[in-house]
C-alpha cells in the first residue's frame, strides 16, 4: 500500500469524520434514528478502513486484540449491569424508571447507558471479526495475483 498515495491521503482525511459521525449517531440515538448498533458499526468501519489501508499492525497498536475482546465483554456487562441496577431498587430487570427520581428521567438515563454498552460491544465485535479474518496467513501472496 506504500504507493497508493491518494488512498492514504483520503483515508487520513475521512477517518476522523467517520468516527465523529459514529459518536453523533450514538449520542443522538435517543432522540432521532440511530443508536448503539448503528454507531458501533460505523465506528468499526472507520477502524477497519484504517486497517485495510495502513496495515493490520497499525490498527492493532491503537486497539490491541486483548483489549478488543475485553471491551466487547465490558459492553455486554454495561448493558446487563444497567438492567441489574433496577433489581436492587425492587423493580423488574431493565426497568430504567428505577435509575432516577422521575421515571421519565430514569428511562432516559437507562437508554443512554444501554446504547453505550451496545455501541461498545458492536464496535469491538466488528473489529474482532476483522482481526480474526485478517490475521490469518494468506494462502496467496500479494505478488501472485
Amino acid at each position, binding site marked *: 500500500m506504500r504507493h497508493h498515495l491518494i488512498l492514504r491521503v483520503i483515508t487520513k482525511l475521512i477517518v476522523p469524520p467517520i468516527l465523529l459521525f459514529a459518536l453523533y449517531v450514538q449520542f443522538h440515538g435517543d432522540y432521532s*434514528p440511530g443508536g448503539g448498533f448503528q454507531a458501533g458499526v460505523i465506528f468499526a468501519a472507520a477502524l477497519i478502513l484504517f486497517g485495510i489501508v495502513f496495515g493490520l499492525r497499525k490498527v492493532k497498536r491503537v486497539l490491541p486484540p486483548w483489549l478488543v475482546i475485553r471491551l466487547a465483554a465490558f459492553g455486554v456487562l454495561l448493558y446487563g449491569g444497567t438492567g441489574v441496577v433496577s433489581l436492587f431498587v425492587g423493580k423488574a430487570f431493565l426497568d430504567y424508571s428505577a435509575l432516577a427520581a422521575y421515571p421519565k428521567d430514569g428511562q432516559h438515563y437507562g437508554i443512554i447507558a444501554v446504547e453505550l454498552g451496545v455501541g461498545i460491544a458492536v464496535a469491538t465485535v466488528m473489529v474482532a471479526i476483522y482481526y*480474526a*479474518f485478517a490475521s490469518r496467513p494468506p*494462502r496467496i501472496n500479494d505478488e501472485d495475483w
Partner: protein
Amino acid sequence: MTLEFILGHLNYWLFIILMMTGFYIVVSRGNYVKKIVGLNIFQVSVFMFYISIGKVQGGTAPIFPVDLNIDPNVVYSNPLPHVLILTAIVVGVATTALGLALVVRIREEYGSIEEDDILEIEQHIQAEENSEHGSAMGGRA
C-alpha cells in the same frame, strides 16, 4: 386470482422467490462459501417478509416530531417488525461470520472448500478407521 391480488402482494411474491432462491443455493451448491451466500439470501428474504408485514398503507416513519406534538391524523407504519428484524440482522451477521470462520478453518485443514473433495477425504478417513477398528468387531471393514 386477479391481477390486483398478484400485484397487491408483490412483496410477498418477491419474498417467496428470494427465499426459494436462497434455499436452492444452499441445497444445490457444493462450494462452502456459496452455501453461506445462499444462506444469507435466505435470511434476507425473511427480513423483507417482516418489513412487509409492518408496512401500513400511507403510513410514514414512526418517529416522534421534535416538539412531541403528535398529529392524530398521521398514520404510522408498525415499528415492531423493524425492531425484530434489527435483531435478526445481528443474528445473521453473527451466523455469517461464524460460518466463514469455519470455512477458513476447513480450508486450512482440508485444503479445499468443495463439498465433493471434502467428502472424499472424509470417506478416506472413515475407511481407514474401519479397517483399523472394524476387524475386532467382525463387522464392516
